[in-house]
């Protein structure tokens, strides 16, 4: 007869309490004798206990295995060290709790938002519910919720390979070993080894199709010991060198350019702007948004490129 979820939860809690209360390792025989919820043949109880042990570990509980008598090592026992069970973060004052609450409240993805709220409930289990303190800080809207986020987190943590269709300039099937997740300007990326190209690449999660699947096998790859998420993006951020361009901008217009450039008067209608840029497309975007209030003057090849870039709209 299969047991109900309620019976199983009850037994798991009784087991947790017994293992936490014991100062010494409890043998299986002692557990079966003393903890409520174990019944049936020895084999049944054995199977129940193995499953329960794994379930509690899945909940993050550390079950220590050891023996009281070094001469009888095969008679293993189990316990939970209370110090490794409970949260110990020291005292948190009202301002710190307000900061943590703000940090936990900004997430749009359900994995982080639910986890953040669980963490806050744990602080409130120590300090009690707090009167809200306003810190007059911006509320966050810095994350676009990413689909598949929980699956991707698990794949990185358990080192499972991923297969998906990726929509970029073309739509292609990718197979990757995921090394980590990065949030950049509101978007989540998964960074990993592209197994077909043998290169580390980053993939915007918003462009991953819903055909995403993770391999069943945990520990399917090793992340290189020298791989670092922050260093990977640091390197990418400094790829372009800064260059300079000279523009004519209409007097009193092209406000976005004025903020970024050094301005000199040129004639009654135009000012001259010298602007530093590291990305040609970002400069073109700025000039195009200013419509007829901005003209690229120098260098000539940049001017020609801009004309070509604008013409592409018609011809692709």
């Amino acid at each position, binding site marked *: 007869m299969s047991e109900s979820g309620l019976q199983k*939860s009850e037994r798991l809690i009784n087991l947790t309490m017994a293992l936490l209360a014991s100062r010494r390792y409890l043998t299986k025989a002692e557990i079966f004798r003393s903890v409520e919820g174990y019944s049936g043949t020895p084999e049944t109880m054995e199977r129940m206990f193995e499953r329960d042990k794994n379930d509690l570990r899945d909940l993050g509980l550390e079950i220590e295995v050891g023996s009281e008598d070094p001469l009888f090592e095969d008679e293993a026992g189990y316990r939970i060290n209370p110090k490794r069970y409970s949260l110990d*973060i020291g005292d948190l004052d009202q301002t710190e709790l307000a900061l943590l609450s703000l940090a936990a409240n900004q997430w749009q993805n359900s994995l982080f938002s639910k986890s953040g709220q669980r963490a806050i409930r744990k602080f409130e289990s120590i300090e009690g519910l707090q009167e809200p303190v306003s810190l007059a800080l911006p509320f966050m809207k810095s994350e676009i919720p990413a689909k598949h986020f929980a699956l991707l987190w698990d794949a990185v943590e358990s080192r499972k390979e991923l297969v998906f269709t990726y929509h970029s300039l073309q739509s292609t099937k990718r197979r990757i070993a995921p090394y980590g997740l990065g949030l950049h300007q509101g978007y989540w990326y998964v960074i990993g080894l592209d197994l077909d190209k043998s290169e580390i690449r980053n993939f915007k999660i918003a462009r991953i199709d819903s055909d995403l699947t993770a391999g069943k096998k945990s520990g399917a790859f090793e992340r290189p010991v020298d791989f670092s998420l922050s260093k990977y993006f640091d390197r990418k951020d400094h790829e372009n060198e800064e260059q300079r361009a000279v523009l004519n901008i209409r007097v009193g217009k092209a406000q*976005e350019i004025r903020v970024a450039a050094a301005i000199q008067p040129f004639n009654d209608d135009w000012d001259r702007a010298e602007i530093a840029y590291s990305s040609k497309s970002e400069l073109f975007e700025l000039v195009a948004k200013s419509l007829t209030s901005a003209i690229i003057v120098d260098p000539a090849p940049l001017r020609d490129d801009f004309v070509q870039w604008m013409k592409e709209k018609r011809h692709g």
Partner: protein
Amino acid sequence: MAENALERTSRALDLIPFVAANPGLSIEELAIKFESTPSQIFKDLEMLFMCGLPGYTHLELIDMELEEDYVAIRNPQNLDKPRKLSRIETTSLTLGLDLLIPLIGDEELKRKAVDLRGRFTALLNEEAEPIATVIQGEAKSIGEVDVVIAQALAHQTSLEITYRSASTDEISTRIISPISTYLERDHLYTIAFCSKAGEERHFRHDRILSVKATEVSEQSKRERPARSVEKPDLLVVTAVLSPRNRYFLEAHNSIVESVVSHGSDLLATFSVGDYEWLLRELLALPGRVEVLGPPEFTKEFYGRLDAVLSQYR
């Protein structure tokens, strides 16, 4: 089985220390707090009544007062303390603080946030490379505008700003009453009641050229409508875009009605109130941008494109 036994066990283990620290809440309040239903919470608590330490006499069982509008734990046994944080729980806090810290202007508060981040990072296994990280773009720092707005928010005062509008390329002076501030894709915005527009508007901080505190008369405060409910007329614009512009559609998904493949390009439909803004944005996109309609918008788009190109002849 309606609910996974592990989820129930996890919630029940967290309920005990929470109720012990916060006696007297109702079942409904607990359900809201634990993002569950009152009947689920009631079942959890009933189950916990039956749990305890080996022996299972009334001295060893968890003991509580359980009424619909009053729950209290008389004896939590050894479940009086909350469980330690999981890796995801800790990460959601440390990354949240990473996003928050650059936005804090007050030095004392910033020091507290940095210290907290350190305390929580220490809970993670220091040897392990993190699973997730926040990649900071340009180092953001809080400027004078941000500080003045934060003060106005805290004291509910009004501000006089000079603002350059991205959609009209004009500078205007406005009196605004800030309501809240948010960060979106590396830019800070303030939602405020704008006396010039007579309604709520969003102001990007780096477009505020100057800001100063100002008095708003009681008269104009009274005249302020509670919330603007009227929406401007929306224009539906259709365009074929190069797939290089996928990022634009992602960044402005609130105005994108639909996106479908169109050969090797994308066919997008926008629903927008600020036509001038969309015109300029489309002109500033790379690769193919073919506006299909409506006719007046199409005419305006190609007229502007030709006007820009004519300057280079």
